[in-house]
């Protein structure tokens, strides 16, 4: 059972959002986020994970999988700090950080890096998941810096 991560309010480092429209494949992922759980599909045939959500195992093509709660621990694989506002609503959020994080369990996901100065983000930085209720019924994940040694 993964320890549920706290909700954060970090508006000063978070871009206001276009909201995701869940699909049949992705709905369980977003429902888990609303429970403050990060879950990833895991294949019952070959035991590997994949992301983003799909209706089949990306590795062995089996459709027998489950949504596994994962640790929420990850490492920054890469990142980029946005300085251009792609919409007027985003202008007061600049600069904000889009990251690709590599989960301890393997898959990588696109997210935001929050809770730190954008200039301090580094490739390989250890991070942990946090959750943000951005709208009625919509919770998104983000990742913040994590102390590696002695993490619970």
């Amino acid at each position, binding site marked *: 059972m993964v320890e549920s991560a706290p909700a954060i309010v970090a508006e000063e480092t978070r*871009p206001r*959002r*276009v*909201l*995701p*429209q*869940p*699909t049949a494949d*992705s709905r369980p992922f977003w429902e888990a986020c609303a429970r403050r759980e990060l879950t990833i599909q895991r294949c019952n045939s070959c035991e590997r994970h994949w992301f*983003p959500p799909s209706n089949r195992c*990306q590795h062995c093509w089996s459709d027998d999988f489950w949504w596994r709660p994962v640790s929420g621990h990850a490492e920054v*694989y*890469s*990142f*980029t*700090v*946005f*300085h*251009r*506002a*792609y*919409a*007027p*609503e*985003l202008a007061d*959020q600049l600069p*904000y950080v*889009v990251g*690709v994080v590599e989960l301890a369990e393997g898959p*990588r*996901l*696109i*997210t*935001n890096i929050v809770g730190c100065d954008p200039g301090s983000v*580094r*490739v*390989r930085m250890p991070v942990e998941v946090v959750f943000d209720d951005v709208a009625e019924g919509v919770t*998104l994940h983000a990742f913040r810096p994590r102390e590696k040694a002695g993490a619970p």
Partner: protein
Amino acid sequence: MYGRSAAIVGAAHSKLGEVPGSTSIGLMADAAVAAVADAGLQRSDIDGIIVRGPDDEYCFQQQLGERLGLNAAFTTSLDNGGASQALAVVLASLAIEAGLATTVLCGYARNSWSRTRQRGSRKARMNQATHVRTREWRDSFGYFGEPATHALGAQRHMALCGTTKEHLGHVAVSVREHATRNPHAQMRSPLTMDEYLQGRLVTTPFSVYDCSLRTDGAGAVVVTDVSRARDLPRPPVIVRGFGSHNNLRGWTVDDHMIETAAQASGERAYRNADVSPADIDTAQLYDCFTYMVLAQIEDYGFCAKGDGGEFIASGALALDGAIPTNTSGGQLSEGHVEGMLQVVEGVRQLRHEHPVERQVPDARLALVSGHGGNTVCHTTLILERD
């Protein structure tokens, strides 16, 4: 096995840059007519069309055929993004060898500069029904626009290999330098490293100077078989070989943003053409962003992976450098026509048709690349002077 029996006999582009009132299909027709004329051919000779337009225009080859009054034996429009234009030349070569057609028009057109002016506000754009998948996994996190994807690659390359902002700057400065000698280029004023470093940031590490242009423009070439090519006015440019590779699993998977699909595509092309990197006299590389030039220079074996920054900073891309690259100014400075101008320039260099200040001396082999299709499709062409 491909028999090396195809050759490019005509190459041309439309007006480039800011062409108010232009349409994609109008620009395409202009480039097509000019390419056929350049080949010394006429309308009745064309029996194949592989052209591509904006992603929101269906069956672009039908639009062109209608406008040019052409029924044609073999036509299609490819869907590999920026890898499509080099792939069109590959497909044309195979179609000719297989007897599907004898003379194929390949090209691309988009009135991108005009579209940028016509679109509604950025707010309207953000609220447009974008593709559900993009919206869910990118837009929701503020990940918009073209630069971010390659910026992620550049950022990681900097962390792993010590590549610097200045290294990327040398790409921008080198390619702009070529454009200063191209009367058709969209950006012709010299770019200094200081100006590059002061450039307005888009998304790190990219500034505006790391990004290709928005261009109204079209490019086209005509491909036919070698024996016929030798009867036509221009020196034929043989399609000597090609290779492709597509990291469909995704840009963020494995090391795809560091060792890109160019590496496997290039390996296949070199083997197919029976040449090595040392044999290549000039490279026309798909330069959507400065980082992709650096990554391809490494992936194509012109230097080792990780050494691209220093190699380029040493002047490697210049006309008298180790590998003269994007010699008409690339998409960074001549104009973005989704890789089609790289095909055209490869042909022009091998024909030796440029004035001496733009000509790679005694160019015999050119490498032309295409990259795109959600950032993971890649085509490599090896062209040879007859």
